[in-house]
C-alpha cells in the first residue's frame, strides 16, 4: 500500500520538527494546568469529584483550543511546502499516485498530531492523579480517542488546504483564517442571522435552525461527540440550549457525523484538486 509508505516517511520527517516539540510542551503544560484547575473545582463543588467534569476541565478546554492549532501547524505545509521546495518531484518521481500522497500525508501528519495528543494527555493524566487523586480510565480513553479523531479532522482540513496551493504562505493564511472563522466568526455570523430573522439577540427559545447552525462547526461537533461518549450532556448543544426536542444536528451522536463530514469534504476536494494540477 503506497499511501502507507508515504505516511511512514512523512511521519519520520515531520515528527522531528522543533515547532511540534514546542507545541506539545505547551499542550502538556495546559493539560497539567487544567488538572490543577479541576482539583480546585472539585473542592468548590465539595466532594463533587465528578470524574467526567474533572476530565472536561482538565482536557477539553486545552484540547479544544490547542489540537486545531497543532493539527493545522503540522499539516498546512504538508503538500504546499513540498511543492514550493521541489521535493514533491522526488516523492512523485517514485511510483505513488497523487491520491496516495494526499492520503499518506494525512495519515502521517495525523500520527504526528497523535503523538502530541498522547503526550499532552499523558501529562494531563499524571496531573489528575496528582491533584484530584482519581480518574476513570475508561472515560479517559474515550476522551483520548475522540480527541484523536478531532485531530484527524483538522489534519484533513490542513492537508486539504495545503493541496490547493503552491504557496505555504497562502496555506498558512488559509489555515489560520479557518481557525478564526470557527472560533469567532461562525458564532458571530449565526448571531447576526438570528438578529436578522428575529429582530433581537435575546429570544425566549432559540429556533431550531440556530441551534443546528451552531452545532455544525467541527469544534461544536467535538463537544457533542465527547458528550456522546462520556454520557455527559453538559458538553453538547442539547445541554446548552436546554430544549426537550432538539434538531437532529444538535444531538450528541450527530457530532460524529459532523466530524466525518469535516474530514471527508476537505479530503475529497484536496484529492480532486491535487490530481488535476501542474506541480
Amino acid at each position, binding site marked *: 500500500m503506497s499511501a502507507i509508505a508515504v505516511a511512514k516517511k512523512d511521519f519520520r520527517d515531520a515528527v522531528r520538527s522543533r515547532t511540534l516539540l514546542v507545541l506539545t510542551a505547551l499542550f502538556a503544560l495546559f493539560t497539567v494546568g487544567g488538572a490543577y484547575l479541576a482539583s480546585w473545582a472539585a473542592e468548590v463543588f465539595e466532594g463533587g469529584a465528578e470524574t467526567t467534569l474533572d476530565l472536561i476541565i482538565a482536557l477539553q478546554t486545552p484540547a479544544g483550543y490547542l489540537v486545531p492549532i497543532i493539527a493545522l501547524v503540522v499539516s498546512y505545509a504538508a503538500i504546499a511546502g513540498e511543492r514550493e521546495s521541489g521535493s514533491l518531484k522526488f516523492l*512523485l518521481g517514485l511510483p505513488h499516485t497523487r491520491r496516495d500522497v494526499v492520503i499518506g500525508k494525512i495519515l502521517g501528519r495525523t500520527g504526528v498530531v497523535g503523538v502530541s495528543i498522547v503526550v499532552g494527555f499523558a501529562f494531563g493524566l499524571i496531573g489528575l492523579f496528582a491533584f484530584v487523586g482519581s480518574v476513570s480510565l475508561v472515560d479517559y480513553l474515550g476522551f483520548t480517542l475522540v480527541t484523536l479523531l478531532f485531530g484527524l479532522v483538522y489534519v484533513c482540513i490542513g492537508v486539504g488546504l495545503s493541496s490547493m496551493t503552491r504557496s505555504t504562505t497562502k496555506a498558512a493564511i488559509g489555515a489560520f483564517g479557518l481557525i478564526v472563522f470557527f472560533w469567532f466568526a461562525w458564532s458571530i455570523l449565526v448571531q447576526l442571522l438570528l438578529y436578522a430573522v428575529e429582530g433581537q439577540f435575546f429570544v425566549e427559545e432559540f429556533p431550531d435552525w440556530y441551534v443546528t447552525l451552531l452545532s455544525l462547526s467541527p469544534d461544536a461537533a467535538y463537544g457533542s461527540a465527547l458528550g456522546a461518549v462520556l454520557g455527559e450532556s453538559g458538553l453538547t448543544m442539547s445541554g446548552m440550549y436546554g430544549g426537550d426536542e432538539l434538531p437532529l444536528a444538535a444531538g450528541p451522536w450527530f457530532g460524529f457525523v459532523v466530524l466525518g463530514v469535516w474530514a471527508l469534504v476537505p479530503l475529497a476536494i484536496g484529492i480532486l484538486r491535487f490530481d488535476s494540477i501542474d506541480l
Partner: protein
Amino acid sequence: MTAIDISNVTKRYGDELALEGLDLTVREGEVYGFLGPNGAGKSTTINLVLDFIRPTAGEVSVLERDAQEGSLEIRERTGILPEGIELYDRLTGRQHVEFAIESKAADDDADELLERVGIADAADKKAGGYSKGMAQRLTLATALVGEPDLLILDEPSTGLDPNGAREMREIIREENRRGATVFFSSHVLGQVEAICDRVGILRDGELIAEDSIAGLEDAVPNRTRLRIRLDRIPEDSAAALSAVESIDGVSEVEAEGTTLVVSVADEAKTTVLRTIEDHGVTVEDFETDESSLEDLFVAYTAEEREVAP
C-alpha cells in the same frame, strides 16, 4: 520499440508558450541527450514525461503507455533525477534510499547503492547537511533503485565537480549497458558528446535538430574557428570588423586585443585573411580548430541564423 514518444505537444502556461508542437522520439536502449539553453523547455518536457504537468495539446507516451493514464506503471519502471534536487532535510541518506526501495517494492541494498554513487560515508547523515553534489549523488542512488528500464536525468551534472561528472557518466554507461534507456538533459555539451547515441536540440520550445552526433556535425556546413593574430589593431578597427562580418560564410567575429576569432565556412577562410590585410595590418599567425559540438550548438540555437536541415 520506443521508450518515449512525444507527438505534437504544446504546453502553455497562461499566455506563455513553453513548448510548441514538439515531436520527439527516444528509442529503447539508447542514450538520448536533450540539449538546449536554460529556458528552452527541457524541464517542461521532462515534467510532461513524468506527468508532473499535463500537456495543453498533444500526446505523450512513455514505455508504450500514456503518460497520464499509465503514470504509475511508468514510474514503477523509471528512475528519475529531477532538476534542482530538494530532499527531506530531516531524513538521512539511507532513509531516502530505503524509502525509494519500499516505494518501488524493490529488493536493492541501500548501502550498496550509496556506495555506488560514492556517498557511503554520509549514509547516516541528514540530507539537510548535504552539499549540492552529494544531494545529486543521493538522488541518483534513488533513481537506480529497482533496475529501471528508463532513466530520466534532468541536468545530472549540476553541482558535481569534473570528477563527479565523470563518475556520473560512468554510471549512465553502466546502466545503458545493463539495458536501460537513458534520457538526459544538459546544457553542457561535453556531457552529451561523450556518451550519447543521439541528440535533440531544443530552442524556444521547439526541437530544431535531432540526430546522432556525427549526423549533426554533417548537417551543419563545415565550420572552422579561425584564430588570427595581427601585428597591431587596425586604425579603423570598427570598419575592419564589419568588413569581416559581412563576408559571406562568416557567422561570428570576436576581437580579443590583437587576436581575432572568426567562425567561418571553410571556403571563405582565405577571403577573411585577405580582407583583414586590406585594412593595413599584417597577419602574423593563424590557426584553425575543427568545429566542436559547441559551435554546432551555437549554430543551431543562435537566434539570427538559419541552418539548413
